[in-house]
């Protein structure tokens, strides 16, 4: 393929440098071990799926080859069903995460900065953090009804804890020297928070948000499985009820894709925001 481009460019010398540089860049990216290894593993996975579906697990009530999933994907896209459901899920994830980020960070700072707040609330936080919150989803649906509100509530409840806890630990782990510096320059309490605790804790906050995204996707599906009229969880549930295995896989793949792309987006954002470290924080 690279030689094709080279042949074309030799015919059109005017645009040669730009196109040559682009194909070079694509080629160099593809040659990076991290990239070509993941591509190879992806190809093996997809081909393996197709072969297993066609020759090993041939009962289509349990498993289908990849090509059937692709057909279902096209069917659901054309009918508009897929986008309606994706939009419904993402709306709940968006609202729930936004709430979780705002409330999680504010409360995390308070928790990390004040011993008193920590003493009063830590027991409940630890209890809630370790409780499988799936258990309260039916209750939330009872309270808020089937629809956006209950899904947002589940997403919020399940994703707020990693943000609160990592924000608080970020604030608590701020180097005492930085606090001394702020104090010696006469910083007020609010200035200590805004100019030292928040920037110093930011990497922790972003790690918390990254963990929360994965949980938010779990949350929205739980909300939709227990009761909903739209969403990827709803799509999966109804596909299961009607033995529409290809449609079920479409839903699952969309969720996996959402998780991976959101996590990547946040990693990219982390690198943009935290330029003051030689490398972004590793988990």
């Amino acid at each position, binding site marked *: 393929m690279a030689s094709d481009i080279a042949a074309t460019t030799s015919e059109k010398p005017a645009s040669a440098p730009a196109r040559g540089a682009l194909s070079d860049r694509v080629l160099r990216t593809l040659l990076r071990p991290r990239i070509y290894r993941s591509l190879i593993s992806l190809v093996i996975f997809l081909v393996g799926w197709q072969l297993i579906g066609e020759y090993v697990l041939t009962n289509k009530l349990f498993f289908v080859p990849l090509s059937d999933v692709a057909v279902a994907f096209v069917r659901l896209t054309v009918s508009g069903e897929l986008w309606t459901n994706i939009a419904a899920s993402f709306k709940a994830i968006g609202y729930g995460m936004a709430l979780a980020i705002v409330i999680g960070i504010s409360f995390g700072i308070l928790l990390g900065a004040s011993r008193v707040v920590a003493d009063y609330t830590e027991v409940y936080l630890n209890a809630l953090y370790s409780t499988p919150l799936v258990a309260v989803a039916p209750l939330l649906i009872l309270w808020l009804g089937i629809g956006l509100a209950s899904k947002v509530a589940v997403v919020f409840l399940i994703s707020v804890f990693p943000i609160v806890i990592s924000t608080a630990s970020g604030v608590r782990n701020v180097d005492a*020297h*930085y606090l*001394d*510096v*702020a*104090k*010696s*320059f*006469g*910083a*007020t309490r609010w*200035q200590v928070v805004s*100019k*030292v605790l928040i*920037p*110093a804790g*930011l990497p922790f906050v972003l790690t918390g948000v990254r963990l929360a995204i994965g949980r938010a996707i779990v949350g929205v599906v739980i909300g939709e499985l227990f009761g909903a009229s739209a969403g990827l969880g709803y799509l999966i549930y109804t596909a299961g009820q009607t033995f529409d295995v290809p449609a079920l896989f479409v839903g699952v793949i969309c969720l996996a894709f959402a998780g991976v792309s959101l996590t990547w987006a946040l990693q990219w954002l982390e690198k943009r925001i*935290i*330029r*003051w*470290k*030689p490398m972004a924080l590793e988990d």
Partner: protein
Amino acid sequence: MEQANAGERPIKLAVSGLGKTFQTRGNPLVVLDDINLEIRAGEFFVIVGQSGCGKTTFLRIVQGLDRATKGEIKLDGRPLAGPGPDRGFVFQHDSLFPWRTALRNVMFGPELRGTPRAKAEKDAREIIKLVGLAGFENHYPFELSGGMRQRVNLARAFAVHPDILLMDEPFAALDALTRESMQQELVRIVAETGKTVLFITHQIDEAILLADRIAVLSARPGRVAKIIDVDLPKPRTLALKRTPEFNAMVEEVWELIAGFEKGTAAAHG
């Protein structure tokens, strides 16, 4: 000439009867006992003592980071209570904010006081030039060497235009070569700005190279054992370290400090 009228210059910092006692599981630990000092405007005053003699505690009390158990500190005749931008503190540790560039680190103090951004930035750029870091304004601390970071540290303290500069072993963590060049830089910067400096170190040669006067602190409890006038000619260069006068002074301070050690050993034995 500077030396001649040193005695006539007004007193910048006056410390009287200062003491600090820590409560450690019932046993009071006297760290500082009856410290009395008068530091004059424009003076480079060095406190030297072995580690654990309470010299850092003393400096932290002057800055307002710790409280004294007794005694009083006056700056320009006003009693001090709590930290303030009238004193600029240069920390021993690498305490630059890693999330701020060199420029924004230097702007930290003025920013807290609500100085307009444009003015703070212009000031900061000038101070960065003064400490010899022009061109590195937009570097983050992790991109700077240890010596450069201490220059930014110094610039940050300068940026609040303090009446007195408090320096807590600022060069202790640097390698020998960088330390020597930083000492020379500090001499130059202080000469250019005429700042009053209270400097703490455990390195005797550093003390003598920099100081107008040296207070030798005894160990536990820290007391001012002796105040020595360093009347060696200025500007002092590294060549001075090879003169007999310099070595005689090192010897004098060394014997004082070694004397405390013997004293402590005897007390413990």
